[in-house]
């Protein structure tokens, strides 16, 4: 009987100028789930990359099944029964589920891929582990949660006894997250061990058997869910006390700033995504849109900000019709936008911090005079944004692509907030960023509200909606199925509405 499935013994890894992990030891026993908790840059990814053979430790050793091993690379780790589900899925989108699962270890017949055999083996796995996936679907057509199951199947197909998951829930909806946690539980009953990297406290407490908290490359605590709490874990992670709840006063709503009337918007496949939707957001209040992703949130936000044409209905900002006008015109009315996809609509990665800090206003004074950019004004503005919004960047001319997600997001928030804004639309404002940055962004949004801005908050994180919003609208299949006062909202009830239960 194996005692330690996989482990690290005092491993140290240095990168130029950084001590990524420092004397870290962990161990995973069969049938258990080990959560590695820590902020971005705490060393979690470096640690698991060493377990998976991507990096070699400078000091210390990796243990697989009670044996000290010297991994030659990922394929060596795979051979020894280690499977990894990367944060960015390693799937080939235009290929089918079966093809993706067997790729690199294909059953063969005369040099041709034996697809019927491959399909049979995949179906066996699907049934044995009750992972619901259509083997013939193309990966690019599957929702993210299902793609992740394909990744898990890929590891199981290679007889993984240890499954390492790097931030598996960062891209999932609450329902998909629940499903994943259930899947992982089932796997452990079959003797598979799971290493689970995350910075989400609720998940850790819900699923882990053992918790290891990392900070600045060191283990700062080892505990179990029963001996811990969200607050305690957050403090360990950040190294200071943090406020998980947002402090805010009761809202003082004023006149209507955003009004949407009977809006109809189509998605990329020309299917109706927003369906006869009407809503109002007033000065000084936060309206939260709750809903499972893919229920029209993206299309709604894009229609309001002018990024997508609407088919019917009206959008008014400060009583001016802005239906199907340009994003620049809409922005010039005092609309700030924190977009859902920060890489695509939020920043230009190859541009510097300085340039990104004013990219929404580059054509206006003081940044541009007579068609020429004004370096001085740009630099001094960027300095203000970076200081005020705590953007951690080595220099102002650093390319934004090299910053962490949290710092990019703070830069976007800083840029949008530094103008005069009457209306703020924030879509998934804290997705994939660490607790410190989340806390900061939440406070900034509430502050903007208190200064009199109307805020439309769209988030897949129910906690975020409940914590920040003054009113909550639940979106289901492109329609608002209920609007509730945040004070009397209840998690269970909203969850049911999000799933379309009780909706006539």
């Amino acid at each position, binding site marked *: 009987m194996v005692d330690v499935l996989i482990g690290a013994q005092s491993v140290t890894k240095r990168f130029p100028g950084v001590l990524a992990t420092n004397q870290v030891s962990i161990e995973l026993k069969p049938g258990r789930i080990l959560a590695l908790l820590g902020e971005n840059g705490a060393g979690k990814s470096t640690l698991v990359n060493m377990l998976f053979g991507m990096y070699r430790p400078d000091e210390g050793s990796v243990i697989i099944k009670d044996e000290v091993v010297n991994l030659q690379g990922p394929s060596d780790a795979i051979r020894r029964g280690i499977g990894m589900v990367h944060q960015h899925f390693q799937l*080939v989108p235009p290929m089918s589920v079966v093809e*993706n699962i067997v790729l*690199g270890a294909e059953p063969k017949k005369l040099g041709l*891929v034996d697809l019927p055999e491959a399909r049979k083996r995949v179906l066996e796995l699907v049934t044995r582990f009750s992972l619901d996936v259509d083997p013939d679907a193309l990966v690019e057509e599957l929702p993210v949660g299902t793609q992740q199951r394909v990744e898990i199947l890929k590891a199981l197909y290679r007889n993984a006894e240890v499954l390492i998951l790097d931030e598996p829930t960062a891209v999932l909806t609450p329902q998909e997250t629940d499903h994943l946690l259930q899947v992982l539980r089932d796997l452990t009953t079959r003797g598979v061990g799971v290493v689970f990297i995350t910075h989400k406290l609720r998940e850790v407490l819900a699923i882990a058997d053992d918790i290891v908290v990392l900070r600045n490359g060191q283990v700062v605590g080892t505990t179990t869910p029963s001996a811990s709490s969200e607050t305690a874990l957050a403090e360990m992670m950040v190294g200071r006390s943090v406020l998980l709840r947002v402090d805010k006063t009761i809202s003082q709503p004023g006149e209507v700033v955003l009004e949407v009337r009977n809006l109809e918007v189509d998605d990329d496949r020309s299917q109706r995504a927003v369906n006869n939707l009407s809503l109002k957001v007033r000065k000084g209040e936060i309206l939260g849109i709750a809903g499972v992703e893919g229920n029209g949130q993206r299309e709604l936000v894009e229609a309001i900000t002018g990024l997508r044409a609407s088919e019917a209905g009206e959008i008014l900002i400060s009583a001016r019709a802005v239906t199907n006008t340009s994003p620049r015109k809409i922005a010039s009315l005092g609309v700030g936008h924190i977009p859902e996809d920060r890489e695509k609509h939020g920043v230009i990665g190859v541009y510097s911090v300085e340039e990104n800090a004013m990219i929404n206003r580059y054509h206006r004074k003081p940044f541009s005079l007579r068609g020429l950019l004004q370096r001085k004004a740009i630099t001094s503005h960027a300095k203000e944004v970076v200081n005020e919004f705590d953007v951690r960047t080595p220099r102002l001319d650093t390319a934004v692509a090299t910053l962490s997600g949290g710092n990019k997001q703070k830069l976007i928030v800083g840029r949008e907030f530094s103008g005069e804004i009457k209306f703020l639309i924030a879509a998934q404002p804290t997705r994939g960023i660490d607790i410190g940055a989340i806390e900061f962004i939440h406070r900034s949004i509430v502050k903007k509200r208190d200064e009199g801005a109307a805020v439309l908050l769209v988030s897949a994180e129910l906690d975020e909606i409940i914590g920040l919003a003054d009113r909550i609208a639940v979106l289901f299949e492109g329609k608002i199925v209920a609007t509730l006062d945040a004070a009397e909202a209840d998690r269970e009830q909203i969850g049911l509405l999000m799933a379309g239960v009780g909706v006539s």
Partner: protein
Amino acid sequence: MTSRRRAFLWVLVAVLITLIFGFYSINSGQTTAVLAGTVRAATLLVLGAICGMICERSGIVNIGIEGQFLMAAFSAFTVTSLTGSLALGVFAGIATGLVLGWLLAAMAVGLKVDQIIAGTVINIAAVGLTSFFYDRSRSLGVGKYSPIELGSLADIPLIGRVFFSRPLLTYITICLIVLVHIAMFRSVWGMRTRAIGEHPGAADTVGIRVLRLRYFNATLAGGFAGFGGAYLALEAVGAFSRNMSGGRGFLALAVMIFGRRSPFGAYAAALFFGFATALQNQFQLNSTFDIPTQFVGMLPYVVTIVVVALSGLFGSMRDPAALGQTYEKS
């Protein structure tokens, strides 16, 4: 989108077939000549397109096909004229193509040179080297590959002349098209090749050696272009002349795209482009129509522009996601 595209293609095919039968009933001799010319031109184009397809499916842009054709034609011609053996000439052409394919990989994959520049290097080098070593007094001596009639198949009116009484290399090419099609879409090699062109990172995590496979594929693809060059010198023309590839390596890329990076699709597209070329030749030979030769000469290129533009309108295939990108192990 795909159904519209399909409808567009069917209409195109129907119009062509009607025209062909119409012309055949009026003037069978000329129609047969045009269609035989179509197959002759298509063989070169499809070989180039297969070369481009193997490269692009692996994530490598190969705009050096033109140069690969030219150098291979040159070496095939030279070897045959020196040894008197057509077969040795073909092998020399293939070998030249393999070397140039490997060179492309060495630049684009090994040294991570911009792939467009790497291909251009090959094209420029080909023109320079072949012009420099070109010897006007040399001739093939043994004559080019001559047609082989495939029994009674060759007696079928029109089709028999067009497809079943061709020289050897055309038959080999048709076999290669089928072989590569099966290999690309059914074999382990094909699946891995498509994977490294779409998502090399994913392929790497399952133990596929991305760079090695890219080297192999670019080299292999060069062999197809080399075979094309040999075909040009030893079967289609029977001589070598300066810059004899005449832009057909680039046309092959259009054929590849219009054929959706599949060998069967490429052959259909090659026949279509070949038809335009054959038509042009026929117009120039007979003076029934009083059109200035310059305009007639434009025909294949105008067709290229129109068809490529139209195929874009009707939703062409998406490029492999990692096309043109060098792969760095993380």
